[in-house]
């Protein structure tokens, strides 16, 4: 459903474009949990921003349901694709319910009234992410883990086929991180949505994702964990020799020196 064709990602600049990665060809199907992995600064966020039309490709194109992303209007695209970003939210007195309700904006009328159907979607999103008890809490009083769930609920309420999350586990402890991954895995199974997530939690991502987008210096590889292991794809992501990929347990381990 989401496809790239000879995609080159990067930043358009006056003195020549800054190319991050080129010749990206991936085809993402529905109902999959997909992790974008790679070392710091390799371009994970750039790829996600390009896939979600926040940023324009340098060349090539991204297709959603066979149509180029930029052929969608802002409103049409907002019904297909929702986001969870890493950026800090401005401080306001929004409650959890109100914040999630903002996910219904693509469907609300000019004055932003919620229909009974909208409210049902919001309640369902809160149930799925297990935050119904936080309904009336102010969002800035939440813990990082709770806030992440609220933002995921907002994306669910937006009712899109694809949800893209940029490092949702960045500020979370191990327990919360696993919780978020398990939640996302559950959501993919229950709703048949496609969830694309970038993360530094490589070992966890390898265990729980259906497919991996692996970004290295000169290419992007795409496939199931098993397929990528058989291609020895993980051996070269990190430059130093302290970290090693152990094929038998399918995890990265610290090398004994």
């Amino acid at each position, binding site marked *: 459903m989401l496809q790239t064709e000879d995609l080159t990602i990067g930043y358009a600049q006056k003195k020549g474009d800054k190319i991050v990665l080129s010749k990206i060809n991936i085809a993402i199907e529905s109902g999959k949990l997909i992790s974008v992995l790679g070392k710091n600064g390799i371009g994970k966020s750039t790829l996600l921003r390009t896939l979600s039309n926040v940023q324009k490709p340098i060349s090539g194109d991204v297709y959603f349901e066979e149509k180029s992303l930029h052929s969608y209007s802002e409103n049409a695209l907002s019904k297909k694709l929702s986001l969870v*970003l890493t950026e800090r*939210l*401005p401080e306001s007195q929004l409650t959890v*319910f109100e914040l999630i309700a*903002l996910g219904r*904006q693509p469907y609300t009328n000019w004055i932003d009234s919620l229909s009974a159907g909208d409210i049902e979607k919001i309640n369902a999103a809160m149930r799925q992410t297990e935050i119904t008890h936080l309904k009336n809490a102010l969002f800035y009083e939440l813990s990082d883990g709770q806030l992440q769930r609220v933002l995921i609920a907002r994306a669910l309420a937006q009712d899109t086929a694809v949800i893209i999350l940029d490092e949702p586990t960045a500020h979370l402890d191990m327990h919360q991180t696993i919780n978020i991954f398990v939640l996302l895995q559950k959501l993919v199974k229950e709703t048949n949505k496609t969830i694309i997530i970038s993360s530094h939690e490589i070992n966890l991502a390898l265990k729980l994702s259906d497919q991996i987008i692996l970004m290295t210096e000169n290419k992007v590889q795409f496939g199931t964990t098993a397929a990528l292991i058989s291609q020895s794809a993980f051996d070269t992501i990190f430059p130093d020799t302290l970290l090693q990929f152990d094929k038998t347990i399918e995890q990265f381990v610290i090398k004994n020196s």
Partner: protein
Amino acid sequence: MLKPASKKPFLLLFLLLMFLCLLNISLGSVPIPFQEILNILTGGIDTKESWQTIILNFRLPKAITAILVGSGLSVAGLLMQTFFRNPLAGPFVLGISSGASFGVALFILGSSLFSGFLITNSISNWSLPMASSFGAFLVLSAVVIAANKVKNTMSILIIGLMFGSLTAALISILSYFSEASQIQQFLFWSFGSLGNLSWNELFIFIAVYSIAILASIGVIKPLNSLLLGENYAKSAGINIKKSRNIILLITSVLTGVITAFAGPIAFIGLAVPHIARIIFSTANHKTLIPAVLLLGAIVMLICDTISQLPASEFTLPINAITSLFGAPVVIWLLIRKKQLFV
């Protein structure tokens, strides 16, 4: 967004506004019995003609001006604070008030420098608002052009501040070359004044004000969306560029027309949205817009009533009163709440 705020505070605020309006009209240098005031306001004729003139041609237009100025500046302030996600934004920061001041300065102070173009030095009721609107529009256009070039809202905020500094500097230079009497004239304008508006001027004021306020109801949805920042707003299908231009335009028109007719009025636009957020404890603009409209009018009427110095013949400059009122409110808010929201 849901959570329709309860109607009760609105009703109370509306009653308070009515009461303050009557109080404002009944106070002044000429004592008029309250009974007579009600009589005149309801169209009675069986009273002294001088009283009728005072009420209908001076006090009533002044009270209406206070309501328009207070509510208009407060809406402009609310829009700026949400748009810039900055609790310290207000109509002044975009440099639009300064632009209006610059227009007036050019008119009053520059008349000696450009005596070839402006023959008369006397200030008619019309030329001042026009000069002020022109100045506001000039800075607005510059800010909108700059805003379309930069993507970051913080940069727009800084560009606005820079335009404010630029115009302030130009005003200083103009003052330096002007005569004392002209500087005095400009100074009096900058004190702000809610009086002096004829009904004709008031009708134009009301017309422009109404268009801007109606337009602000139209941007409630993008405003709510912007509470999560521009990227989320965009991903929820909001056309950011269009919304941004409409919001900037509403603010500029409101600030421009208000400064034109009443002079630069400080602090109302900054303080009132915070008072509204505390009273209604919400960020939803569906509640906040009517709330700041009512509260802005109330605060301005209180300030104007104080400035008349009840039972005396003196009137204090309104701008001094709003600052005397506004500055402590903002300090108190910061100390009590520890945190300001957008």
